């Protein structure tokens, strides 16, 4: 559905995107992750034809964004960053306007508007002026505007920023629901969001794509797997013994609690329990910890800082 190849964008001397390549299949929900200034918004502006790239190509549903921008715009729904809205008009007026520009026939317009109002749960505020609405409702108005023509591809730039936890949960559920028959690309810098809504995450750092994977897989393949171990009556000499295990890279002791950093990307519980039994240590707690997405993210996006 979305094919991005060697996308490059410079703002003067600053390189915002550098040879970014990825493709998104139909009905996938993609999370675009990265620290601020990593190129998420730039990517989205190019995909929605708001801005032309310097090199490379972006093709949506067979239409190149630079060759056939009008076709791309018909297929794509876009919620820009910070959700700009005309504050003086009512929700219904705003939606009718977009429907008109989108060329939805007059007969079907009211139906389309009613459907989207229902879907985004805007019934209670549909006759209100947008400027009087709370942030959560405004965000839903922005989303409704982006979806009124039932687009195949939705591009949402930080759809959850500034919302309270309940609103974030609502928005994510909506995105998940939409993802059943639409291709959704949404950006965020909250990793937990991506973890349970996305089929795939793309991580950008300084304009370069540093990861493209399923969130769980990303964590599994990363460095930093740990075994957490509680040994009754621990003493510091145990550290040396534990280090003799060839998969233990590093040990940390917090009283009776031990953190062992493992080079193996799997649960080493059995081996560890066996080792402790041989040593005659009383193990009261044993757990395996995968690195979380935050650690993966920090690892991937800080690499650039060191250079």
């Amino acid at each position, binding site marked *: 559905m979305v094919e991005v190849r060697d996308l490059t964008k410079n*703002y003067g001397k600053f390189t915002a995107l550098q040879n970014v390549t990825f493709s998104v299949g139909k009905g996938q929900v993609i999370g675009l992750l990265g620290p601020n200034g990593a190129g998420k918004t730039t990517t989205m*502006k190019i995909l*929605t*034809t*708001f*801005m*032309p790239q310097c090199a490379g190509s972006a093709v949506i549903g067979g239409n190149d964004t630079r060759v056939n921008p*009008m076709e791309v*715009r*018909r297929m*794509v729904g*876009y919620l*820009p960053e*910070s959700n*700009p*809205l*005309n*504050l*003086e*008009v009512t929700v219904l007026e705003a939606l009718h*306007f*977009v429907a*008109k*520009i*989108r*060329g939805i026939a007059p007969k079907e317009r009211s139906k389309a508007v009613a459907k989207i109002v229902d879907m985004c749960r805007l019934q209670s505020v549909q006759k209100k002026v947008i400027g009087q609405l709370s942030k959560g409702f405004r965000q839903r108005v922005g989303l409704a*505007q982006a979806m009124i023509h039932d687009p195949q591809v939705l591009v949402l730039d930080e759809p959850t920023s500034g919302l309270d936890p309940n609103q974030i949960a609502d928005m994510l559920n909506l995105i998940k629901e939409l993802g059943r028959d639409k291709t959704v690309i949404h950006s965020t810098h909250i990793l937990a969001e991506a973890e349970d809504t996305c089929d795939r995450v793309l991580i950008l750092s300084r304009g370069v794509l540093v990861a493209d994977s399923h969130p769980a897989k990303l964590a599994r393949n990363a460095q930093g797997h740990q075994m957490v171990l509680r040994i009754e009556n621990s003493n510091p000499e145990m550290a040396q013994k534990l280090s003799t295990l060839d998969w233990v890279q590093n040990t940390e002791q917090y009283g009776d609690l031990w953190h062992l950093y493992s080079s193996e990307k799997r649960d080493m519980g059995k081996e560890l329990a066996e080792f402790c039994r041989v040593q005659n240590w009383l193990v009261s707690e044993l757990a395996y910890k995968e690195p979380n997405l935050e650690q993966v993210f920090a690892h991937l996006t800080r690499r650039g800082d060191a250079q």
Partner: protein
Amino acid sequence: MNRIRPVLALAQRELRSWFITPVGYVYLVFFVALSNGLFFVLNRFFDMGQVSMRGWFGMLPWVYLFFVPAFSMGLWSEEKGRGTIETLLTLPLSEWQAVLGKFLAGLGFLALSLACTFTVPYTLSQVGNLDWGATLASYFGAFLMGAAFLAVGLLVSSLTRNQVVAFILSITVLFVMIMIGHPQMIMMLSTHFAHLSFFSGVVHWLSWSGLITHFGNISRGVIDTRDVIYSAVVVFVLLHLNVHLLRTQRWK
């Protein structure tokens, strides 16, 4: 037809947006008060003993100088300031359609403003014998000149995200355009530079290209095809520039 519909939808929304808040009414009151005030008080209508609107139309460029930038300053700059330009220009709407939509809305507002001044010819026709043909022709000319002013205001509005900057800059550009062809300016130039033989050609060209020159004919109630073509060309060139600017601004 399908290409016109989005243009009209945009024009309709823009036109309406002036009247959602009181700001549109304020502009209308300002226009009517200023044009009539200048005509009846400054132009000494009551001492002239003549039933003619020539004085009124003669003042009009100076009223337009403030009025047109006032109502056109926000057309693009507000979209840019708020960021709504991003939603607008990612709709299936070409730059030409967007510019035309905005321009048509401005023309609508201009027509409405001129319609609000119909009390003047009506009053004159009650006290004496008004030449309605010449008056209506002048109104047509006033509309054409307003269109040229508006095209300038619209273009300048697309240069900035700040409405006040757009307002001041529009006034400046329009002032220069008025002065270029102003009779006193032309006279000054031709006397000062009379010794330069090629200069008479320059002066002639300047006086032709000025906004006022063409409107001078029209305010007398004479419609010359050349003046109509002049306005159309000015409008077309400015709108074209506007489209070009929107396209190049996408690169930033």
